[in-house]
């Protein structure tokens, strides 16, 4: 089914180019699941040598300022570009925004190869082959197999893949503070559970950066 609906969302170009260049037809829905581990649909895409895309919506949005909705395209099962339709960011930055704890709702779609050609020309949205498995799924083995499956002309993209996404994550002070705050609360509630409340440092948490 190719109904021409711009389902993935990147109907307008974040780089200000031709709004049509990122248009991707809806394609055929292969599966729609809520998964705790995003490695599962990435495995499926790799095994099927998927030509198409995935939409990824984190169900836990606590660590984000708003909702995130990701689109990841695949060529022969290998991720090519990443886009966040909520923030309009693409590439490593979008990858960083989507790298939050699961579960996620993931839908996989197949499209005609020609339908992705224009979108895949958007250099700013591209990511290194193994970076989605590394940063989203925390799956080094899957990342290695994905790199191995990537065409020869993409092998040089893997040198320090993920470094840009990590740099983007580290620059997001609000998100890092949210992770820290959540960890502090969790540490305190687990301490109570384990009978370690008396061992807690009562001054901890009142000083932001020691």
């Amino acid at each position, binding site marked *: 089914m190719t109904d021409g609906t711009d389902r993935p969302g990147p109907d307008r170009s974040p780089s200000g180019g031709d709004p049509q260049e990122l248009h991707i037809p809806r394609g055929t829905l292969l599966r729609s699941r809520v998964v705790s581990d995003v490695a599962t649909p990435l495995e499926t895409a790799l095994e099927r040598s998927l030509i198409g895309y995935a939409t990824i919506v984190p169900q836990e949005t606590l660590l984000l300022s708003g909702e995130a909705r990701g689109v990841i395209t695949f060529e022969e099962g290998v991720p090519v570009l990443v886009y966040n339709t909520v923030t309009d960011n693409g590439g490593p930055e979008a990858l960083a925004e989507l790298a939050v704890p699961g579960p996620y709702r993931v839908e996989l779609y197949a499209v005609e190869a020609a339908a992705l050609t224009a979108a895949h020309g958007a250099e700013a949205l591209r990511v290194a082959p193994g970076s989605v498995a590394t940063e989203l799924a925390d799956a080094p083995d899957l990342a290695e197999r994905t790199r191995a499956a990537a065409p020869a002309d993409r092998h040089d993209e893997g*040198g320090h893949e*993920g470094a840009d996404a990590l740099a983007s994550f*580290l620059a997001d002070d609000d998100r890092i503070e949210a*992770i820290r705050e959540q960890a502090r609360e969790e540490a305190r509630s687990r301490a109570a559970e384990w009978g370690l409340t008396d061992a807690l*440092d009562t001054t901890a*948490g009142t000083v932001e950066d*020691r």
Partner: protein
Amino acid sequence: MVEAFAVASGKGGTGKTTSTLALGMALSADYDVTVVDADTGMANLLFHAGLDDAPVTLHDLLIEGTATDVSEATYDRFGMSVVPCGTSLAGFEAADPVRLRDVVAELAADTDVILLDSPAALGSKSAVLPIVLADRTVIVVEPTIPALSDALKVQEYARSYGTETAGVLFNKVRGEFDTIAERTDRHFGGPILAGVPDSDAAREARRAGKPLLAHAPESEAAVAYRRAADRLDVRDGDGDRVADRFSSAVVPDTP
């Protein structure tokens, strides 16, 4: 006694045990170092230190009612004192994690630096005890978003118990690292100790049952670990005071 460090990561597979032994060997040039496998549920330090057949381990020390002396579970290896932990489920189930406090207190009286190879995840009381008991943590992290997220979590857990970060050690680094180091630095209480390159040397050392610094002392990774140890500002402490603190650490005896 100078200082006890928990070597922690927040997730598995970061090379924590390799790092613990590498830092231990590097620090042993200047200090009397004791390395303890405090990952009582998933011990693996014994395999890295050629102690697969150790007859007495930390598990034996943690079982109530046994008269085992700490010295019986302490082995001189590679210039360090090494306290391995057994790998049997029965040993883990019989062990009382809270007794780790007494073991550490006893070791503290007779060594300069204690490195506690800590459990990867912070999901249980026994897993969190090393960071409760340590003076400071060394956090081992891979340069990925999931690993850094977990490292931040470890830092906050440790701080909740008054245990500050002594340094962050990046492992399995590929390619450019300066930007990552610079941006990581401000989020942690201690300095970036080093970026240890991804290499086969560590895997080969593990297969050989030797610490990296003994197996491939001139490898790039070994050089990076020695640099990390140099940057770790081991603080002078009063041995008796530290031993006292461990003995009286407010840790209830019942789970």
